[in-house]
Protein backbone atom coordinates (compact mmCIF):
# COMPACT_ATOMS: atom_id res chain seq x y z
CA UNK A 1 0.00 0.00 0.00
CA UNK A 2 2.77 2.43 0.96
CA UNK A 3 6.10 2.29 -0.82
CA UNK A 4 8.99 4.51 0.17
CA UNK A 5 12.06 4.36 -2.05
CA UNK A 6 15.26 6.12 -1.04
CA UNK A 7 13.50 9.05 0.57
CA UNK A 8 15.86 11.92 1.45
CA UNK A 9 14.98 15.17 3.14
CA UNK A 10 17.48 17.97 3.52
CA UNK A 11 16.68 21.18 5.39
CA UNK A 12 18.54 24.22 4.28
CA UNK A 13 18.61 27.12 6.70
CA UNK A 14 21.05 29.95 6.01
CA UNK A 15 23.24 27.73 3.89
CA UNK A 16 23.61 25.11 6.61
CA UNK A 17 22.32 21.81 5.29
CA UNK A 18 20.79 19.34 7.71
CA UNK A 19 20.07 15.83 6.53
CA UNK A 20 16.83 14.86 8.25
CA UNK A 21 16.27 11.67 6.26
CA UNK A 22 18.79 9.68 4.28
CA UNK A 23 17.76 6.96 1.83
CA UNK A 24 14.83 5.69 3.82
CA UNK A 25 13.02 2.81 2.11
CA UNK A 26 10.28 0.54 3.40
CA UNK A 27 6.86 -0.78 2.49
CA UNK A 28 3.74 -0.87 4.60
CA UNK A 29 0.89 -3.22 3.72
CA UNK A 30 -2.76 -2.88 4.52
CA UNK A 31 -3.72 -4.01 8.03
CA UNK A 32 -0.30 -3.46 9.58
CA UNK A 33 0.31 -1.83 12.95
CA UNK A 34 3.67 -0.11 12.72
CA UNK A 35 5.51 1.88 15.36
CA UNK A 36 8.29 4.20 14.31
CA UNK A 37 10.61 4.90 17.20
CA UNK A 38 13.79 6.84 17.66
CA UNK A 39 15.34 9.60 19.74
CA UNK A 40 14.44 13.27 19.31
CA UNK A 41 15.82 14.76 16.14
CA UNK A 42 16.15 11.36 14.50
CA UNK A 43 13.88 12.42 11.63
CA UNK A 44 10.78 10.45 12.55
CA UNK A 45 8.49 13.51 12.54
CA UNK A 46 9.82 14.52 9.13
CA UNK A 47 9.04 11.02 7.94
CA UNK A 48 5.52 11.28 9.26
CA UNK A 49 4.98 14.60 7.47
CA UNK A 50 6.16 13.11 4.22
CA UNK A 51 3.93 10.07 4.68
CA UNK A 52 1.02 12.44 5.40
CA UNK A 53 1.64 14.45 2.22
CA UNK A 54 2.20 17.55 4.34
CA UNK A 55 5.81 17.86 3.23
CA UNK A 56 7.77 16.90 0.12
CA UNK A 57 10.91 14.78 0.19
CA UNK A 58 14.05 16.28 -1.38
CA UNK A 59 14.66 13.04 -3.25
CA UNK A 60 13.16 9.57 -3.57
CA UNK A 61 9.79 8.16 -4.40
CA UNK A 62 6.62 7.91 -2.35
CA UNK A 63 3.87 5.74 -3.79
CA UNK A 64 0.53 5.53 -2.01
CA UNK A 65 -2.03 3.07 -3.34
CA UNK A 66 -0.17 2.92 -6.65
CA UNK A 67 -0.10 6.69 -7.09
CA UNK A 68 3.09 8.68 -7.12
CA UNK A 69 2.63 11.45 -4.54
CA UNK A 70 5.48 13.64 -5.85
CA UNK A 71 3.69 14.31 -9.11
CA UNK A 72 0.54 15.68 -7.46
CA UNK A 73 -0.43 19.34 -7.48
CA UNK A 74 -1.63 21.20 -4.43
CA UNK A 75 -5.33 20.38 -4.84
CA UNK A 76 -4.62 16.69 -5.47
CA UNK A 77 -2.50 16.59 -2.32
CA UNK A 78 -5.35 18.22 -0.36
CA UNK A 79 -7.72 15.56 -1.66
CA UNK A 80 -5.22 12.81 -0.81
CA UNK A 81 -4.88 14.08 2.78
CA UNK A 82 -8.65 14.30 2.98
CA UNK A 83 -9.48 10.80 1.68
CA UNK A 84 -6.46 8.56 2.29
CA UNK A 85 -4.86 9.78 5.49
CA UNK A 86 -6.23 10.13 9.02
CA UNK A 87 -4.04 12.44 11.08
CA UNK A 88 -3.72 12.24 14.85
CA UNK A 89 -1.49 14.89 16.39
CA UNK A 90 0.25 15.09 19.74
CA UNK A 91 -1.54 18.36 20.58
CA UNK A 92 -4.91 17.05 19.26
CA UNK A 93 -5.39 20.13 17.00
CA UNK A 94 -9.13 20.38 17.50
CA UNK A 95 -10.85 23.62 16.52
CA UNK A 96 -11.50 25.25 19.89
CA UNK A 97 -14.84 26.88 19.08
CA UNK A 98 -16.50 23.76 17.77
CA UNK A 99 -18.19 20.83 19.47
CA UNK A 100 -16.76 17.31 19.15
CA UNK A 101 -19.40 16.55 16.56
CA UNK A 102 -18.51 19.55 14.40
CA UNK A 103 -14.81 18.78 14.65
CA UNK A 104 -15.49 15.27 13.40
CA UNK A 105 -17.74 16.60 10.62
CA UNK A 106 -15.05 18.93 9.22
CA UNK A 107 -13.11 16.53 6.92
CA UNK A 108 -16.41 15.19 5.56
CA UNK A 109 -17.54 18.74 4.85
CA UNK A 110 -14.37 19.33 2.85
CA UNK A 111 -15.06 16.10 0.97
CA UNK A 112 -18.56 17.30 0.10
CA UNK A 113 -20.36 14.33 1.65
CA UNK A 114 -24.12 14.95 2.02
CA UNK A 115 -25.25 16.24 5.40
CA UNK A 116 -27.33 13.23 6.45
CA UNK A 117 -24.56 10.76 5.68
CA UNK A 118 -22.04 13.01 7.41
CA UNK A 119 -24.01 13.02 10.64
CA UNK A 120 -24.52 9.26 10.56
CA UNK A 121 -20.80 8.63 10.09
CA UNK A 122 -19.85 11.18 12.77
CA UNK A 123 -22.11 9.54 15.33
CA UNK A 124 -20.77 6.12 14.40
CA UNK A 125 -17.08 7.03 14.78
CA UNK A 126 -17.66 8.99 17.99
CA UNK A 127 -19.43 5.91 19.32
CA UNK A 128 -16.46 3.82 18.26
CA UNK A 129 -14.09 5.88 20.46
CA UNK A 130 -16.63 5.88 23.32
CA UNK A 131 -17.68 9.52 23.24
CA UNK A 132 -21.40 9.19 22.47
CA UNK A 133 -22.23 11.33 25.51
CA UNK A 134 -19.73 14.09 24.67
CA UNK A 135 -20.72 14.97 21.12
CA UNK A 136 -21.88 18.48 21.98
CA UNK A 137 -18.96 19.38 24.24
CA UNK A 138 -16.38 21.88 23.07
CA UNK A 139 -12.70 20.82 23.42
CA UNK A 140 -12.20 22.95 26.56
CA UNK A 141 -14.84 20.83 28.30
CA UNK A 142 -12.97 17.59 27.59
CA UNK A 143 -9.97 15.86 29.22
CA UNK A 144 -6.79 15.33 27.19
CA UNK A 145 -7.68 11.71 26.54
CA UNK A 146 -11.18 12.64 25.42
CA UNK A 147 -9.78 15.30 23.10
CA UNK A 148 -7.44 12.75 21.56
CA UNK A 149 -10.39 10.38 21.12
CA UNK A 150 -12.27 13.15 19.25
CA UNK A 151 -9.19 13.54 17.07
CA UNK A 152 -9.15 9.78 16.41
CA UNK A 153 -12.84 9.87 15.52
CA UNK A 154 -12.13 12.74 13.15
CA UNK A 155 -9.29 10.74 11.56
CA UNK A 156 -11.60 7.75 11.15
CA UNK A 157 -14.50 9.72 9.65
CA UNK A 158 -13.25 9.50 6.05
CA UNK A 159 -12.29 5.78 6.38
CA UNK A 160 -8.70 6.56 5.34
CA UNK A 161 -6.20 4.02 4.02
CA UNK A 162 -3.91 4.74 6.92
CA UNK A 163 -4.07 6.33 10.36
CA UNK A 164 -0.99 8.44 10.99
CA UNK A 165 -0.43 9.24 14.66
CA UNK A 166 2.36 11.54 15.81
CA UNK A 167 3.09 10.95 19.52
CA UNK A 168 -0.62 10.48 20.22
CA UNK A 169 -0.05 9.87 23.95
CA UNK A 170 2.74 12.42 24.36
CA UNK A 171 0.59 14.86 26.36
CA UNK A 172 -1.46 12.31 28.29
CA UNK A 173 -1.25 10.79 31.78
CA UNK A 174 -0.72 7.01 31.92
CA UNK A 175 -4.32 5.98 32.42
CA UNK A 176 -5.67 8.00 29.51
CA UNK A 177 -2.65 6.99 27.49
CA UNK A 178 -3.52 3.33 28.01
CA UNK A 179 -7.08 3.98 26.78
CA UNK A 180 -5.77 5.53 23.59
CA UNK A 181 -3.37 2.63 23.01
CA UNK A 182 -6.29 0.26 23.52
CA UNK A 183 -8.30 2.12 20.90
CA UNK A 184 -5.46 1.87 18.38
CA UNK A 185 -5.18 -1.85 19.07
CA UNK A 186 -8.89 -2.38 18.52
CA UNK A 187 -8.91 -0.29 15.35
CA UNK A 188 -6.07 -2.39 13.99
CA UNK A 189 -7.94 -5.57 14.87
CA UNK A 190 -10.87 -4.29 12.82
CA UNK A 191 -8.55 -4.03 9.83
CA UNK A 192 -7.31 -0.44 9.98
CA UNK A 193 -3.72 0.25 9.03
CA UNK A 194 -2.06 2.14 11.86
CA UNK A 195 1.27 3.92 11.88
CA UNK A 196 2.37 5.46 15.17
CA UNK A 197 5.40 7.60 15.80
CA UNK A 198 6.28 7.36 19.46
CA UNK A 199 8.69 7.47 22.33
CA UNK A 200 6.27 5.40 24.33
CA UNK A 201 7.48 1.83 24.71
CA UNK A 202 4.00 0.68 25.75
CA UNK A 203 2.63 1.59 22.33
CA UNK A 204 5.66 0.18 20.59
CA UNK A 205 5.11 -3.08 22.40
CA UNK A 206 1.56 -3.32 21.06
CA UNK A 207 2.68 -2.72 17.47
CA UNK A 208 3.28 -5.68 15.19
CA UNK A 209 6.31 -4.09 13.59
CA UNK A 210 8.82 -1.60 14.92
CA UNK A 211 10.96 0.63 12.73
CA UNK A 212 13.76 2.31 14.62
CA UNK A 213 15.26 5.45 13.13
CA UNK A 214 18.47 7.12 14.21
CA UNK A 215 20.07 10.12 12.52
CA UNK A 216 17.71 9.92 9.54
CA UNK A 217 18.51 6.31 8.77
CA UNK A 218 16.64 3.11 9.50
CA UNK A 219 18.57 1.32 12.19
CA UNK A 220 16.25 -1.66 12.50
CA UNK A 221 12.96 -2.87 11.06
CA UNK A 222 11.71 -5.79 13.10
CA UNK A 223 8.60 -7.86 13.56
CA UNK A 224 7.36 -7.72 17.13
CA UNK A 225 7.69 -11.38 18.16
CA UNK A 226 5.39 -11.01 21.16
CA UNK A 227 2.44 -10.15 18.90
Amino acid sequence: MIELKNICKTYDSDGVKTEALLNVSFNINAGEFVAITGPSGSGKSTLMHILGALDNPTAGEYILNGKNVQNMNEDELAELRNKEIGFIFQSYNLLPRMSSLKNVLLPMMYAGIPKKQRLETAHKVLDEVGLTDKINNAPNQLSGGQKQRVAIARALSMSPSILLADEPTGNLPTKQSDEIIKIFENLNKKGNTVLVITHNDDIAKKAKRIINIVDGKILSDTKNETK
Partner: protein
Amino acid sequence: MKLNEIFEESIAVLTTNKMRTLLSILGIVIGIGSVIALMTLGEASQSSVKQQIQSLGSNILTIRPGAQQQGFVRTSNSDNTSLKYADAEEIKTSQRIDTVNDVAVDYTSRGQIIYDKNNMNVQIYGITDNYLSLRNIKLDYGENISLQDRDIYNKVIVLGAGVVEELFGTEENPIGKFVRISGASFKVIGVTTSKGSTGFGGGSLDESVYVPLETAQKVMFGISHVSTIYVTAKNEEVMDAALNQIGFLLLERHGLATPEEADFSIQSQEDILETVSEITGTFTTLLTGIAAISLVVGGIGIMNIMLVTVTERTTEIGLRKALGAKRKTIVTQFLVEAIILTFTGGLIGILLGIGTSIIITKLMNLPATLSLSSIGLSVVMSSLVGIVFGWYPAQKASKLEPIVALRYE
Protein backbone atom coordinates in the same frame (compact mmCIF):
# COMPACT_ATOMS: atom_id res chain seq x y z
CA MET B 1 -17.44 22.41 0.81
CA LYS B 2 -20.61 24.27 0.01
CA LEU B 3 -20.89 28.04 0.23
CA ASN B 4 -23.68 27.97 2.80
CA GLU B 5 -21.54 25.79 5.07
CA ILE B 6 -18.63 28.20 4.72
CA PHE B 7 -21.07 30.98 5.54
CA GLU B 8 -22.25 29.20 8.70
CA GLU B 9 -18.65 28.66 9.82
CA SER B 10 -17.77 32.30 9.22
CA ILE B 11 -20.73 33.44 11.30
CA ALA B 12 -19.60 31.08 14.08
CA VAL B 13 -16.06 32.50 13.94
CA LEU B 14 -17.20 36.12 13.92
CA THR B 15 -19.63 35.72 16.79
CA THR B 16 -17.00 34.20 19.09
CA ASN B 17 -15.16 37.51 19.27
CA LYS B 18 -18.02 39.98 19.26
CA MET B 19 -16.14 42.99 20.58
CA ARG B 20 -13.44 42.76 17.95
CA THR B 21 -15.99 42.17 15.20
CA LEU B 22 -17.90 45.24 16.32
CA LEU B 23 -14.81 47.44 16.47
CA SER B 24 -13.53 46.28 13.13
CA ILE B 25 -16.75 47.17 11.34
CA LEU B 26 -16.96 50.60 12.98
CA GLY B 27 -15.02 52.25 10.15
CA ILE B 28 -17.43 50.84 7.58
CA VAL B 29 -20.43 51.85 9.71
CA ILE B 30 -19.22 55.45 9.88
CA GLY B 31 -18.20 55.51 6.21
CA ILE B 32 -21.50 54.17 4.88
CA GLY B 33 -23.45 56.20 7.44
CA SER B 34 -21.92 59.47 6.31
CA VAL B 35 -22.32 58.64 2.62
CA ILE B 36 -26.03 57.96 3.15
CA ALA B 37 -26.55 61.00 5.37
CA LEU B 38 -24.80 63.38 3.00
CA MET B 39 -26.45 62.03 -0.13
CA THR B 40 -29.87 62.20 1.48
CA LEU B 41 -29.16 65.68 2.77
CA GLY B 42 -27.98 66.81 -0.64
CA GLU B 43 -31.07 65.45 -2.33
CA ALA B 44 -33.30 66.96 0.34
CA SER B 45 -31.89 70.44 0.00
CA GLN B 46 -31.96 70.14 -3.78
CA SER B 47 -35.63 69.20 -3.76
CA SER B 48 -36.30 71.95 -1.23
CA VAL B 49 -34.74 74.55 -3.51
CA LYS B 50 -36.63 73.11 -6.46
CA GLN B 51 -39.87 73.25 -4.50
CA GLN B 52 -39.30 76.89 -3.61
CA ILE B 53 -38.50 77.84 -7.17
CA GLN B 54 -41.42 75.87 -8.53
CA SER B 55 -43.74 77.38 -5.92
CA LEU B 56 -43.10 80.71 -7.63
CA GLY B 57 -44.86 79.35 -10.65
CA SER B 58 -43.46 77.66 -13.72
CA ASN B 59 -44.79 80.38 -16.04
CA ILE B 60 -42.54 83.16 -14.78
CA LEU B 61 -39.88 84.79 -16.96
CA THR B 62 -37.14 86.83 -15.34
CA ILE B 63 -35.57 89.71 -17.24
CA ARG B 64 -32.32 91.21 -15.99
CA PRO B 65 -29.99 93.85 -17.40
CA GLY B 66 -26.68 92.79 -18.89
CA ALA B 67 -25.86 90.42 -21.71
CA GLN B 68 -26.91 86.79 -21.93
CA GLN B 69 -25.01 84.54 -19.61
CA GLN B 70 -23.15 81.51 -20.79
CA GLY B 71 -22.86 79.13 -17.86
CA PHE B 72 -21.67 81.22 -14.96
CA VAL B 73 -19.66 83.66 -17.04
CA ARG B 74 -21.04 86.88 -18.43
CA THR B 75 -19.86 87.20 -22.01
CA SER B 76 -19.61 90.99 -21.99
CA ASN B 77 -19.40 93.58 -19.32
CA SER B 78 -22.31 95.76 -20.38
CA ASP B 79 -23.95 98.22 -18.00
CA ASN B 80 -26.64 97.09 -15.60
CA THR B 81 -28.84 100.12 -15.97
CA SER B 82 -30.31 99.13 -19.32
CA LEU B 83 -33.75 98.16 -18.00
CA LYS B 84 -36.24 100.91 -17.20
CA TYR B 85 -39.68 100.87 -15.72
CA ALA B 86 -41.02 101.96 -19.09
CA ASP B 87 -39.79 98.66 -20.56
CA ALA B 88 -42.03 96.83 -18.12
CA GLU B 89 -44.96 99.08 -18.92
CA GLU B 90 -44.47 98.45 -22.62
CA ILE B 91 -44.32 94.66 -22.15
CA LYS B 92 -47.62 94.83 -20.31
CA THR B 93 -49.46 97.18 -22.67
CA SER B 94 -47.97 96.53 -26.12
CA GLN B 95 -50.41 95.29 -28.74
CA ARG B 96 -47.70 93.02 -30.14
CA ILE B 97 -47.54 90.95 -26.99
CA ASP B 98 -50.52 88.68 -26.42
CA THR B 99 -48.88 86.05 -24.24
CA VAL B 100 -48.25 88.04 -21.09
CA ASN B 101 -50.52 88.03 -18.08
CA ASP B 102 -48.81 90.36 -15.60
CA VAL B 103 -45.56 92.23 -15.11
CA ALA B 104 -43.84 93.16 -11.86
CA VAL B 105 -40.64 95.10 -11.27
CA ASP B 106 -38.06 95.48 -8.55
CA TYR B 107 -35.00 97.56 -7.86
CA THR B 108 -32.74 95.94 -5.28
CA SER B 109 -29.86 97.13 -3.22
CA ARG B 110 -28.39 96.34 0.16
CA GLY B 111 -28.74 98.69 3.08
CA GLN B 112 -28.66 99.10 6.82
CA ILE B 113 -32.02 99.15 8.60
CA ILE B 114 -32.28 100.58 12.12
CA TYR B 115 -34.94 100.35 14.80
CA ASP B 116 -34.24 101.67 18.26
CA LYS B 117 -30.82 100.25 19.16
CA ASN B 118 -31.03 97.32 16.76
CA ASN B 119 -29.72 97.38 13.23
CA MET B 120 -29.33 94.85 10.46
CA ASN B 121 -27.95 94.62 6.94
CA VAL B 122 -30.77 93.66 4.58
CA GLN B 123 -31.69 93.30 0.93
CA ILE B 124 -33.94 96.25 0.03
CA TYR B 125 -36.49 95.70 -2.72
CA GLY B 126 -38.23 98.65 -4.35
CA ILE B 127 -41.31 96.94 -5.77
CA THR B 128 -44.48 97.43 -7.74
CA ASP B 129 -47.78 96.82 -5.94
CA ASN B 130 -48.36 93.44 -7.67
CA TYR B 131 -44.83 92.24 -6.96
CA LEU B 132 -45.39 90.19 -3.80
CA SER B 133 -48.37 88.26 -5.14
CA LEU B 134 -46.63 87.59 -8.47
CA ARG B 135 -43.55 86.24 -6.71
CA ASN B 136 -45.72 84.21 -4.36
CA ILE B 137 -44.48 86.02 -1.24
CA LYS B 138 -47.33 86.05 1.28
CA LEU B 139 -48.08 88.58 3.98
CA ASP B 140 -48.22 87.16 7.48
CA TYR B 141 -50.08 90.25 8.70
CA GLY B 142 -50.49 93.94 7.88
CA GLU B 143 -50.93 95.47 4.44
CA ASN B 144 -49.34 95.29 1.05
CA ILE B 145 -47.72 98.22 -0.75
CA SER B 146 -50.42 99.96 -2.81
CA LEU B 147 -50.52 101.91 -6.07
CA GLN B 148 -51.13 105.08 -4.06
CA ASP B 149 -47.99 104.49 -2.00
CA ARG B 150 -46.05 104.38 -5.25
CA ASP B 151 -47.74 107.49 -6.67
CA ILE B 152 -46.91 109.66 -3.69
CA TYR B 153 -43.46 108.16 -3.00
CA ASN B 154 -44.82 107.07 0.35
CA LYS B 155 -42.24 105.94 2.90
CA VAL B 156 -43.90 102.70 3.95
CA ILE B 157 -42.13 99.35 4.35
CA VAL B 158 -42.99 95.63 4.42
CA LEU B 159 -40.52 93.59 6.48
CA GLY B 160 -39.34 90.00 6.07
CA ALA B 161 -40.00 87.67 9.01
CA GLY B 162 -36.30 87.43 9.85
CA VAL B 163 -35.92 91.21 9.93
CA VAL B 164 -38.85 91.55 12.34
CA GLU B 165 -37.34 88.96 14.65
CA GLU B 166 -33.96 90.70 14.59
CA LEU B 167 -35.23 94.26 15.08
CA PHE B 168 -38.38 93.83 17.17
CA GLY B 169 -37.86 90.46 18.86
CA THR B 170 -40.81 88.14 19.28
CA GLU B 171 -42.86 90.33 21.66
CA GLU B 172 -43.24 93.72 19.98
CA ASN B 173 -45.77 94.35 17.19
CA PRO B 174 -43.91 96.18 14.40
CA ILE B 175 -47.01 97.48 12.56
CA GLY B 176 -47.15 101.30 12.70
CA LYS B 177 -43.60 101.60 14.08
CA PHE B 178 -40.96 103.57 12.24
CA VAL B 179 -37.66 102.13 11.06
CA ARG B 180 -34.78 104.11 9.55
CA ILE B 181 -32.85 103.41 6.36
CA SER B 182 -29.99 105.79 5.51
CA GLY B 183 -31.50 108.58 7.53
CA ALA B 184 -35.07 108.34 6.21
CA SER B 185 -37.95 107.11 8.34
CA PHE B 186 -40.25 104.33 7.07
CA LYS B 187 -43.56 103.25 8.54
CA VAL B 188 -43.95 99.48 8.86
CA ILE B 189 -47.20 98.36 7.24
CA GLY B 190 -46.77 94.63 6.77
CA VAL B 191 -44.74 91.48 7.54
CA THR B 192 -44.16 88.56 5.16
CA THR B 193 -44.45 84.92 6.20
CA SER B 194 -41.26 83.01 6.89
CA LYS B 195 -39.96 81.00 3.94
CA GLY B 196 -37.49 79.03 6.01
CA SER B 197 -34.00 78.06 5.05
CA THR B 198 -33.13 76.83 1.58
CA GLY B 199 -30.40 74.51 2.81
CA PHE B 200 -27.17 75.35 1.03
CA GLY B 201 -28.50 78.70 -0.16
CA GLY B 202 -29.39 80.43 3.10
CA GLY B 203 -32.66 82.23 3.82
CA SER B 204 -32.27 85.57 2.10
CA LEU B 205 -35.99 86.11 1.48
CA ASP B 206 -36.66 86.36 5.20
CA GLU B 207 -33.97 88.99 5.51
CA SER B 208 -35.47 91.29 2.90
CA VAL B 209 -37.53 94.47 3.17
CA TYR B 210 -39.91 95.92 0.56
CA VAL B 211 -40.63 99.60 -0.21
CA PRO B 212 -42.57 101.18 -3.10
CA LEU B 213 -40.52 101.10 -6.34
CA GLU B 214 -40.69 104.85 -6.90
CA THR B 215 -39.72 105.58 -3.30
CA ALA B 216 -36.60 103.44 -3.74
CA GLN B 217 -35.70 104.96 -7.12
CA LYS B 218 -36.34 108.64 -6.43
CA VAL B 219 -36.16 109.11 -2.65
CA MET B 220 -33.61 106.55 -1.49
CA PHE B 221 -31.15 105.82 -4.30
CA GLY B 222 -31.72 108.50 -6.94
CA ILE B 223 -31.63 106.22 -9.97
CA SER B 224 -34.04 105.54 -12.82
CA HIS B 225 -33.34 101.92 -13.85
CA VAL B 226 -34.75 98.71 -12.46
CA SER B 227 -33.02 95.48 -11.41
CA THR B 228 -35.47 92.81 -12.47
CA ILE B 229 -38.64 92.52 -14.49
CA TYR B 230 -40.81 89.52 -13.68
CA VAL B 231 -43.32 88.48 -16.30
CA THR B 232 -46.02 85.83 -15.96
CA ALA B 233 -46.98 84.17 -19.22
CA LYS B 234 -50.63 83.31 -19.80
CA ASN B 235 -49.76 79.62 -19.46
CA GLU B 236 -46.80 77.28 -19.67
CA GLU B 237 -47.38 76.47 -23.35
CA VAL B 238 -46.71 80.03 -24.52
CA MET B 239 -43.46 80.47 -22.58
CA ASP B 240 -41.27 80.29 -25.69
CA ALA B 241 -43.54 82.62 -27.60
CA ALA B 242 -43.54 85.09 -24.69
CA LEU B 243 -39.76 84.93 -24.47
CA ASN B 244 -39.44 85.77 -28.17
CA GLN B 245 -42.06 88.53 -28.16
CA ILE B 246 -40.51 90.23 -25.13
CA GLY B 247 -37.00 89.76 -26.47
CA PHE B 248 -37.68 91.42 -29.80
CA LEU B 249 -39.74 94.17 -28.22
CA LEU B 250 -36.89 95.08 -25.86
CA LEU B 251 -34.27 94.86 -28.63
CA GLU B 252 -36.30 97.33 -30.65
CA ARG B 253 -36.86 99.65 -27.70
CA HIS B 254 -33.13 99.63 -26.92
CA GLY B 255 -32.26 100.22 -30.59
CA LEU B 256 -30.43 96.93 -31.06
CA ALA B 257 -30.45 94.87 -34.26
CA THR B 258 -29.70 91.28 -33.31
CA PRO B 259 -30.22 89.11 -30.21
CA GLU B 260 -26.41 88.79 -29.91
CA GLU B 261 -26.22 92.49 -28.98
CA ALA B 262 -28.85 92.24 -26.27
CA ASP B 263 -28.15 94.28 -23.14
CA PHE B 264 -30.58 92.18 -21.11
CA SER B 265 -31.16 88.50 -20.43
CA ILE B 266 -34.38 86.55 -20.12
CA GLN B 267 -34.51 83.40 -18.02
CA SER B 268 -37.37 81.03 -17.42
CA GLN B 269 -37.85 79.30 -14.05
CA GLU B 270 -36.61 76.16 -15.74
CA ASP B 271 -33.25 77.79 -16.55
CA ILE B 272 -32.86 78.98 -12.98
CA LEU B 273 -33.83 75.55 -11.67
CA GLU B 274 -31.17 73.98 -13.84
CA THR B 275 -28.47 76.31 -12.57
CA VAL B 276 -29.42 75.80 -8.93
CA SER B 277 -29.62 72.02 -9.37
CA GLU B 278 -26.17 72.08 -10.87
CA ILE B 279 -24.73 73.97 -7.90
CA THR B 280 -26.37 71.83 -5.21
CA GLY B 281 -25.50 68.71 -7.21
CA THR B 282 -21.84 69.69 -7.21
CA PHE B 283 -21.97 70.27 -3.45
CA THR B 284 -23.56 66.88 -2.86
CA THR B 285 -21.01 65.09 -5.02
CA LEU B 286 -18.15 66.83 -3.25
CA LEU B 287 -19.41 65.97 0.23
CA THR B 288 -20.21 62.39 -0.73
CA GLY B 289 -16.70 62.08 -2.14
CA ILE B 290 -15.25 63.12 1.20
CA ALA B 291 -17.49 60.60 2.95
CA ALA B 292 -16.33 57.91 0.54
CA ILE B 293 -12.77 58.47 1.71
CA SER B 294 -13.78 57.38 5.20
CA LEU B 295 -15.19 54.24 3.60
CA VAL B 296 -11.77 53.45 2.15
CA VAL B 297 -10.21 54.04 5.58
CA GLY B 298 -12.79 51.65 7.02
CA GLY B 299 -11.83 49.08 4.40
CA ILE B 300 -8.18 49.33 5.38
CA GLY B 301 -9.26 48.72 8.98
CA ILE B 302 -11.00 45.52 7.88
CA MET B 303 -7.89 44.42 5.99
CA ASN B 304 -5.76 45.05 9.07
CA ILE B 305 -8.04 42.95 11.29
CA MET B 306 -8.22 40.17 8.72
CA LEU B 307 -4.41 40.05 8.53
CA VAL B 308 -4.22 39.77 12.32
CA THR B 309 -6.83 37.03 12.18
CA VAL B 310 -4.85 35.09 9.59
CA THR B 311 -1.74 35.21 11.78
CA GLU B 312 -3.71 34.25 14.88
CA ARG B 313 -5.33 31.34 13.15
CA THR B 314 -2.24 30.00 11.40
CA THR B 315 -2.45 26.66 13.23
CA GLU B 316 -6.14 26.39 12.41
CA ILE B 317 -5.45 27.06 8.73
CA GLY B 318 -2.71 24.41 8.78
CA LEU B 319 -5.06 21.92 10.36
CA ARG B 320 -7.82 22.66 7.87
CA LYS B 321 -5.36 22.06 5.06
CA ALA B 322 -4.16 18.84 6.68
CA LEU B 323 -7.77 17.69 6.84
CA GLY B 324 -8.24 18.31 3.15
CA ALA B 325 -9.19 21.95 2.67
CA LYS B 326 -8.15 23.15 -0.76
CA ARG B 327 -6.63 26.54 -1.35
CA LYS B 328 -9.87 27.77 -2.91
CA THR B 329 -11.86 26.75 0.17
CA ILE B 330 -9.56 28.72 2.47
CA VAL B 331 -9.70 31.79 0.20
CA THR B 332 -13.48 31.59 0.11
CA GLN B 333 -13.74 31.24 3.88
CA PHE B 334 -11.66 34.33 4.61
CA LEU B 335 -13.28 36.34 1.84
CA VAL B 336 -16.73 35.43 3.13
CA GLU B 337 -15.69 36.53 6.61
CA ALA B 338 -14.50 39.89 5.29
CA ILE B 339 -17.65 40.37 3.23
CA ILE B 340 -19.89 39.51 6.18
CA LEU B 341 -17.98 42.10 8.22
CA THR B 342 -18.30 44.89 5.66
CA PHE B 343 -21.84 43.96 4.69
CA THR B 344 -23.02 44.00 8.30
CA GLY B 345 -21.15 47.26 8.78
CA GLY B 346 -22.90 48.56 5.68
CA LEU B 347 -26.34 47.63 6.99
CA ILE B 348 -25.72 49.27 10.37
CA GLY B 349 -24.25 52.26 8.52
CA ILE B 350 -27.39 52.57 6.39
CA LEU B 351 -29.58 52.63 9.51
CA LEU B 352 -27.24 55.17 11.12
CA GLY B 353 -27.23 57.29 7.97
CA ILE B 354 -31.01 57.25 7.68
CA GLY B 355 -31.35 58.14 11.37
CA THR B 356 -28.88 61.01 11.05
CA SER B 357 -30.47 62.41 7.92
CA ILE B 358 -33.95 62.27 9.48
CA ILE B 359 -32.68 64.27 12.46
CA ILE B 360 -30.81 66.80 10.32
CA THR B 361 -33.64 67.32 7.82
CA LYS B 362 -35.97 67.89 10.78
CA LEU B 363 -33.59 70.43 12.31
CA MET B 364 -33.03 72.25 9.01
CA ASN B 365 -36.69 72.19 8.02
CA LEU B 366 -35.96 70.27 4.84
CA PRO B 367 -38.31 67.78 3.22
CA ALA B 368 -37.38 64.30 4.46
CA THR B 369 -36.56 62.33 1.37
CA LEU B 370 -34.96 58.90 1.50
CA SER B 371 -32.30 58.46 -1.14
CA LEU B 372 -32.95 54.92 -2.39
CA SER B 373 -30.08 55.14 -4.84
CA SER B 374 -27.66 55.92 -2.01
CA ILE B 375 -28.86 52.87 -0.08
CA GLY B 376 -28.44 50.61 -3.09
CA LEU B 377 -25.02 52.10 -3.73
CA SER B 378 -24.01 51.56 -0.09
CA VAL B 379 -24.94 47.88 -0.14
CA VAL B 380 -22.87 47.35 -3.28
CA MET B 381 -20.01 49.53 -2.01
CA SER B 382 -19.74 47.79 1.37
CA SER B 383 -19.65 44.33 -0.20
CA LEU B 384 -17.10 45.56 -2.71
CA VAL B 385 -14.92 46.95 0.08
CA GLY B 386 -15.05 43.48 1.69
CA ILE B 387 -13.90 41.79 -1.50
CA VAL B 388 -11.18 44.33 -2.26
CA PHE B 389 -9.72 44.54 1.25
CA GLY B 390 -10.39 40.90 2.16
CA TRP B 391 -8.58 39.62 -0.91
CA TYR B 392 -5.01 40.02 0.25
CA PRO B 393 -5.51 38.47 3.73
CA ALA B 394 -7.45 35.57 2.17
CA GLN B 395 -4.67 34.93 -0.35
CA LYS B 396 -2.11 35.07 2.44
CA ALA B 397 -4.07 32.49 4.44
CA SER B 398 -4.51 30.14 1.50
CA LYS B 399 -0.81 30.18 0.64
CA LEU B 400 0.32 28.98 4.07
CA GLU B 401 2.16 25.66 3.84
CA PRO B 402 0.23 23.18 5.99
CA ILE B 403 3.37 21.85 7.67
CA VAL B 404 4.69 25.32 8.52
CA ALA B 405 1.27 26.39 9.71
CA LEU B 406 0.85 23.34 11.93
CA ARG B 407 4.22 23.90 13.60
CA TYR B 408 3.43 27.60 14.22
CA GLU B 409 3.15 28.53 17.87
